[in-house]
């Protein structure tokens, strides 16, 4: 809060125009009984959120996600309760209240999340100084100091209550940190530039290597998503099995076994592809024993190539 006072912005300045608490009746669409029950569960009184404003928050959240139903489907009243029960509603309401500029919600948010956010930032950056800088910059963003189209934007608006709010904050911190480092790592002083590299004429790979490369491409294209993630994390990023296991939510030994099986399957599939290309079994095994440096294949590109689904990052600026 001290930081926010220094920058001359008070949390009472609303990010978006919001109706005065209690100024109007609850919007139609959500059962008032459900609103009352959820408001007690979410302790909205802690940050002075009126029932009407709370109902508006609920309606906005539910409408944005169509109460968990596919777009175009009308959500019955029973679905409202089911949908809100599936969310981290207390966290979501707090985030929405902060995004709307509720001062008491901000105080509550800072009291609860300031230290965890700082610890997360230090953990992500590996440095106390960098961690404090990262956490401070995110605070400024969360507070809505950035503007777009002359309107203050708060990243908390993009929180949808699926996971925990602290988890969302951790992930947002990680995104900021990774983006920052990926930006500055591609820069270097000009004085270190030592001229263009002499590039030889490209050498056409041998026929065996061409067939082997094609067989590997076909094999990787048929991999399951988790297998592709495993290959990328292990071979491209050099992550340990333990780290990969943590992300996948399984034991380290399970990841080890999965990787074993995956390589066995890949090997068999590559051999099968080589044989279907006209090689004998023995020749296929011999082709697989080629020097890996002679393969003009890029694992990163191959794993990217079958990526068809895209995401629209609901950027918090």
């Amino acid at each position: 809060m001290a930081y926010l006072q220094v920058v001359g912005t008070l949390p009472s300045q609303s990010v978006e125009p919001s109706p005065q608490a209690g100024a109007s009746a609850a919007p139609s669409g959500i059962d008032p009984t459900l609103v009352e029950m959820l408001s007690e569960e979410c302790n909205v009184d802690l940050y002075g959120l009126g029932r009407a404003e709370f109902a508006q928050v609920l309606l906005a959240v539910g409408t944005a996600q169509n109460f968990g139903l596919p777009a175009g489907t009308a959500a019955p009243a029973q679905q409202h309760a089911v949908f809100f029960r599936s969310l981290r509603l207390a966290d979501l309401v707090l985030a929405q209240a902060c995004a709307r500029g509720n001062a008491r919600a901000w105080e509550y948010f800072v009291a609860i999340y300031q230290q965890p956010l700082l610890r997360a930032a230090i953990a992500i950056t590996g440095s106390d100084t960098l961690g404090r800088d990262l956490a401070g910059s995110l605070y400024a963003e969360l507070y809505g100091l950035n503007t777009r189209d002359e309107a203050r934007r708060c990243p908390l608006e993009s929180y949808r209550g699926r996971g925990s709010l602290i988890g969302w904050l951790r992930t947002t911190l990680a995104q900021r940190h990774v983006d920052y480092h990926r930006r500055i790592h591609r820069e270097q002083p000009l004085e270190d530039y030592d001229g263009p590299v002499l590039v030889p004429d490209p050498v056409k790979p041998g026929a065996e290597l061409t067939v082997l490369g094609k067989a590997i491409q076909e094999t990787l294209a048929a991999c399951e998503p988790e297998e592709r993630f495993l290959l990328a994390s292990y071979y491209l990023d050099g992550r340990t099995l333990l780290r990969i296991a943590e992300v996948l939510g399984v034991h380290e030994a399970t990841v080890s076994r999965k990787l074993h099986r995956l390589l066995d399957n890949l090997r068999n599939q590559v051999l099968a592809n080589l044989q279907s290309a006209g090689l004998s079994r023995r020749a296929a095994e011999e082709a697989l024993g080629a020097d890996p440096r002679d393969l003009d294949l890029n694992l990163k590109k191959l794993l990217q190539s079958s990526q068809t689904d895209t995401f629209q990052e609901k950027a918090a600026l």
Partner: protein
Amino acid sequence: MNSPPQLDLHPDADSINALVEQLLTEPERSQILTHLAGCSRCREVVFAAKQALFVMEPEALVAAAAAPVQMVASPAAVRPRSVPGAWRVALIPAAALAAAIAISVFAYFAHTRQASELAKNGSQAAPQAAGIRQQPAAHEKPIPAKPAVASNETKQAASKPHSFGRGDGGPALSQVVHPNQPVPPRAPIPSLTTDKNAIMSAPRPLEQQLSAAQFKPAQQTGTPHRVSGTAAGVAANPDKPQTQVEGAAQSNTPNPTEFDTASISQLQVESASQNNSSLIGRRAMGKMVADLKEQPSMLPSGLRATSIVTAQHRTLAVDSLGALFLSTDAGLHWDSVLQQWEGRALVVRTLTIPQVKPPGVGAFDSAQAPKSSAPGAGTATSPSAISPLFEIVTESNHVWVSADGEIWKQKTF
């Protein structure tokens, strides 16, 4: 080849957090994992967020350590207990008896093995004199420490002769709690991991280095192709992989105000970094292909192969002590190769210069090679007349070449 990816579109923080907290449904999880497989930026975010989770909530680390081990290979191991409680008491003396018998049997076999090893050591004097120099035990690489996980699966995985070097042991769980602590260097592993790294970093002849074509023409981009590797964040975080520098066009537009303090001599330029990305991808592919190769179960030395190649129906393998072995029947039988070089052999590899192949060898199926390619079969294609086929790199970084895997000469550049 499918349509090119749109890597400027990423899952939002909510979805990534849901993945980290294991809240996604299976279709959503598959969709995000597919994206993660091709997007190094989002992978970094996921791993960083997970790392922060364990720092903030140590109890989550305990829960992760107790994560269920999926018993895919042996589902019988998770079957429920079938012994009623009353009979468990009766099982105690039976278990004690079985343990006593097991100890006795183990002691007997240990004694027998010791006796046989003594006899074997005496018989090894002859091969040592023949040139297969046994290295002292100090040369043998240490076995990495495995985390103390009381799980049969972990023990089974630890005993497997796989080559997943980097992650094999992984840091102990207590070492993961705080990432600020520098991660101790991982012990080298006497497996293909060492070989893979050696393969990808071992010196190559100049012509092959050029033919590798790992660098794209600088004229194509018109920009300097250098990537800075020093940053405070990474320097303070030794666990960060090199992929911080890979990927292009995935970050936000640089804020011009961030460069105001830079002096003219330190003018920063944007690098395409595609070369580095390509290099990383090629190396990763090389390591994966090296892992795909089937390894012989055991060499005559009793050790596993750390490097193995096959060409012209000849398979050469180097064990962890640096001895070289030759097989002409796809690894069924092995003969030791007389040591003609100084020091240990580290890596054996094939030379794939086009003129190596004797005339008449089929383009696709080398099994169709004429018999004249056998050593000494003819002047036109005899090993002495053709270019070398194999080469080894010794621990003193000398390269020795051979046409048949049996007769070796030091290579002069």
